[in-house]
């Protein structure tokens, strides 16, 4: 049996209380959300926080709301709740598609959107999806609330723009323009389901059927969720038939700081990234 190191547990009753606890205990404290990254890490004693601040008992951090042309999702909303949201599925097909391949049903019942992006595991799916949707990430700290653009949020492996005394409270997705389609394709590690190469695509078409904008992100292959800017540029203004997309995505992994482990070499990850990106873009176009 693997037990975590000892710690003090603090069930926070409000976001303000959680922030105060983070300030009080500093580096010794960690937030606990769904616990499905944190508990495994604590059992392995890779993390040994002396204080755990549980934000799972704070009411009002789990919701999906439509407001001012955007969709607001509370940080503690579980994957399962998001996956089953009809309104989110209608606008963002890649959300249920991407979530359905995260872990297994039990993991999806506990894991939260806020926890996933705060953790920023290089092999996680949600960071790629949130970045492809160009979400706004609302973060609360001792000085109030600030908004971080997804493009400025993911800094490196397990590293984000969050300050140690800040809490993610909400993720906002703007309503997409007409004729927008999205998709998520991943090659997964068969045992853990984590991504070896995951690609999120959001593609909009103009009146003449050519691509007016593309937002493409790669996860799993590299140290963090990364925008595939060169592929985006190669798609915009074109009619996205199969050969155009194949040519534009063939070198999708170029320039990435690729990972390599027993599950896949750099060459394999690079090749599979191109394949997943081609499939994701074509499926997004089909849905646009």
């Amino acid at each position, binding site marked *: 049996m693997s037990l975590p190191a000892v710690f003090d547990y603090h069930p926070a009753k409000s976001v303000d209380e959680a922030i105060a606890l983070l300030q009080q205990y500093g580096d010794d404290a960690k937030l606990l959300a769904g616990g*499905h990254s944190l*508990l*495994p890490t604590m059992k392995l004693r890779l993390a040994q926080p002396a204080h755990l601040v549980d934000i799972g008992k704070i009411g009002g951090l*789990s919701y999906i709301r439509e407001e001012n042309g955007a969709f607001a999702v509370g940080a503690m909303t579980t994957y399962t*709740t998001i996956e*089953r949201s009809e309104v989110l599925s209608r606008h963002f097909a890649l959300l249920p598609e991407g979530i359905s391949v995260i*872990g297994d049903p*039990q993991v999806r019942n506990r894991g939260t959107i806020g926890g996933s992006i705060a953790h920023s595991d290089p092999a996680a799916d949600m960071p790629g999806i949130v970045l492809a949707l160009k979400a706004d990430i609302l973060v609360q700290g001792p000085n109030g609330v600030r908004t971080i653009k997804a493009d400025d949020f993911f800094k490196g492996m397990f590293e984000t723009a969050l300050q140690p005394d800040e809490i993610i409270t909400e993720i906002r997705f703007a309503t997409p323009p007409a004729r927008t389609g999205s998709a998520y394709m991943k090659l997964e590690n068969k045992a853990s389901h984590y991504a070896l190469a995951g690609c999120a695509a959001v593609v909009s078409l103009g009146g003449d059927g050519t691509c007016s904008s593309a937002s493409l992100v790669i996860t799993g292959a590299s140290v963090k969720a990364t925008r595939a800017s060169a592929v985006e540029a190669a798609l915009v203004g074109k009619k996205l038939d199969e050969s155009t997309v194949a040519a534009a995505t063939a070198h999708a992994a170029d320039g990435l700081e690729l990972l390599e482990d027993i599950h896949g070499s750099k060459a394999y990850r690079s090749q599979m990234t191109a394949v997943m990106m081609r499939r994701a873009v074509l499926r997004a176009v089909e849905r646009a």
Partner: protein
Amino acid sequence: MSTHHIHVTINGTAYEGDVDSRMLLVHWIRDGLQLTGTHIGCDTTSCGACTILVDGKATKSCTMFAVQANGRQIMTVEGMEQGGKLHPLQEGFHEKHALQCGYCTPGMLMAGLALLQRNPNPSEHEIRVGISGNLCRCTGYVNIVKAIQYAAEKMQDSEELSVPAQVALAREASNGD
């Protein structure tokens, strides 16, 4: 290390006790309360042998602290049998030979129950997705799928059997999932 007094309803019975902050829920259930039907297979969130329902949702109890369960409604495999009568899922596992060593069975039953509550008439694919967080090293899954199909049919025939009372309660308490 902090110690906490928790109150949890399990299979309709109210339990309370003092737990260390780092105690895993599965250890409290098995060692603290002697409800040993819930198994520990891997301890790494992989096998699903420790699956229980927390507020109606299938949950791996090796990946939750006992203290997090304070105030929750839980169902374990011990809650399935009602008045000496096997639940249709248990009957299905018996009829369709869905177990060999039986180690994975409590978790499979819990995952199967969570699935049937949401989706009383699942396709084979939906069943396989529903139990995809649960590993069986013996059966090859074919008979487990058949057992869940058996239960689905049986439960549709007799509505009153479908949801044990404490699950219905837990469902009311849960907010959505």
